[in-house]
């Protein structure tokens, strides 16, 4: 890992000094017709991330190392064909969709879609492909350049002891949190931006916006389940969001999602006569945003019900409030409070997991319009005996071109 870190910094050093080079590169990677109707644009992000986590690490970080280095190259291709047609592709090379899930390195096509704008206005748009979910309000700031933090909110990253690859006995559910070393079989409420495959219709008017989508996998599904070609459409999931902007400062939304969340490989373990497609994840959420002067504030609250084989429906409610305050020209401080509450195991008065909270604090600075650096500290706590790490330090340098 030290060699990888050293080589990355060595390669990055001239880029950090060469602002003019980055601007020229950005310009050279754009081809456009004279009238601007046709345009092809290649761009990218280079991220160097270093995580120092107490074991077991918080969120979607999969490592036993005290220090984990994650370099990431994101390449994006955008094609604009008249005002009505657009195509987008995003390819990433890193150590896993979430850091550590592919420690030896991996290259993936994370996002690709074709979009059609039906009218001159933005009222009706259609999209087909593999793309971020419309649920909630976090996905628009999911890329490292836009995210005030390095990690995602807990609702989008905190692993819950719901297993998607097998049906387990009821007795195992309540104590599953005591085995965080098998966390890689668990799922969060929403797996990051949830780039599942499908189609959507979306649009906006002056004060309202909407998005409805049909996809091949549930919100909680892991990245391996998102590919529609490889995994098919057995787990068809319906999601949507309706938004209202009463004034420039305010943004409100409500979201829903419903669909099967178990993987096909869980079928042999299903109770007799049941299919893995019989078990749904149903989620409702509300979100709010406020911005004025140097402040940006976002909040989301969602409740999700998982139908668990041999158990019944279990509910988790999770939310966060996130504030970003600009400090001068190019520096910001961001704080986020995440909280999760768990319902009872059906037929008992025992919670199926432990309530918990996580606090994230981040300091960011943009050196130029192409380069930024962030530091983050997170602390988490759960009720009862805790076998997961409570602290996470992370640093990230991002170069945009």
């Amino acid at each position, binding site marked *: 890992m030290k060699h990888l870190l050293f080589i990355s910094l060595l390669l990055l050093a001239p880029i950090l000094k060469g602002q003019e080079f980055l601007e020229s590169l950005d310009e050279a990677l754009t081809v456009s017709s004279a009238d601007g109707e046709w345009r092809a644009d290649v761009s990218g992000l280079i991220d160097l991330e270093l995580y120092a986590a107490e074991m077991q690490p918080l969120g979607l970080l999969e490592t036993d190392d005290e220090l984990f280095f994650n370099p990431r190259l994101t390449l994006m291709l955008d094609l604009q064909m008249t005002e009505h047609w657009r195509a987008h592709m995003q390819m990433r090379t890193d150590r896993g969709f979430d850091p550590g899930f592919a420690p030896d390195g991996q290259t993936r096509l994370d996002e690709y879609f074709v979009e059609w704008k039906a009218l001159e206005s933005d009222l009706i748009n259609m999209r087909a492909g593999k793309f971020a979910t419309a649920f909630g309000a976090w996905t628009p700031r999911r890329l490292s350049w836009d995210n005030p933090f390095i990690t995602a909110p807990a609702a989008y990253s905190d692993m819950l002891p719901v297993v998607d690859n097998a049906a387990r006995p009821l007795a195992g559910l309540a104590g599953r949190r005591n085995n965080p070393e098998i966390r890689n079989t668990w799922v969060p409420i929403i797996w990051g931006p949830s780039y599942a495959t499908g189609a959507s219709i979306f649009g906006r008017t002056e004060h309202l916006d909407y998005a409805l989508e049909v996809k091949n996998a549930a919100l909680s599904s892991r990245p391996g389940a998102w590919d529609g070609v490889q995994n098919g459409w057995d787990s068809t999931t319906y999601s949507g969001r309706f938004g209202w902007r009463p004034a420039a400062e305010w943004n409100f939304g409500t979201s829903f999602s419903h669909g099967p969340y178990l993987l096909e490989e869980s079928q042999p373990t299903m109770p007799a006569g049941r299919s893995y497609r019989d078990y749904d994840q149903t989620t409702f959420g509300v979100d709010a945003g406020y*911005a004025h002067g140097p402040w940006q504030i976002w909040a989301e609250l969602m409740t999700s019900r998982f139908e668990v084989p041999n158990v019944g429906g279990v509910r988790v409610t999770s939310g966060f409030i996130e504030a970003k305050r600009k400090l001068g020209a190019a520096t910001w401080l961001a704080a986020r409070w995440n909280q999760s509450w768990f319902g009872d195991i059906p037929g008992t008065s025992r919670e199926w997991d432990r309530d918990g909270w996580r606090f994230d604090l981040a300091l960011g600075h943009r050196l130029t319009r192409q380069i930024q650096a962030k530091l983050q500290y997170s602390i988490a706590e759960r009720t009862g005996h805790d076998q997961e790490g409570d602290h996470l330090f992370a640093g990230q340098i991002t170069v945009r071109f």
Partner: protein
Amino acid sequence: MPRFTLVTFFSLILCRLVMADGAVSGVVALDVQRPPSVQPGYKPQTVKPIQGEDDTPAIVWVEKAGMTYPKTRAKEHVKIEQEGYQFRPPVVVLQTGASATFPNMDEEFHNVFSYSKPRRFDLGRFRKDEKSPSVVFEKPGLVKIYCEIHQHMRCRLLVLDTPWFALTDAQGRFKISGIPAGEYQLKAMLPSEKIVQSTITISDGKTTAAQLAR
């Protein structure tokens, strides 16, 4: 004799006032500015349609190495409006010490900022009816100004120590007056941000003709 001396004195003063200093005028061959640098797939979501950018002129100025310039334009103040989701004017030139405000004339938020070394600032999000903070430009250099929300919006503000500068018209024509006699560098920043220059000689009471091209 005293009457002659008095007449001569006032004649010389008048002559100095009329013919004082020199000027330079001419034409700059304008080029094309770069397309706006926006994130791929950037699709501005605006309540009203985005209007086109104003024509981008060149900035022309006269300078001499080692010269201490008069601060004749250091108290100037300009308004750079955000209207139709564009900065208007898109190109501004100021002497060091001058200032600018950024009134928002649109119905939506703008967030004006610059990360340029001569002046880094971020005004945050503010609405049409809110007062814009005043930004003073103390250091010479090019200040590239953007809107954080609408990536296509851009303004180029050049801060100069010299007070002898002008913006060209759409044909590239310019005139700069009030320059003391001497040899100077005539420079122009083209719409592409490239700098062209030539050496000129200014004579009292005369207008020097000049042409600048890449």
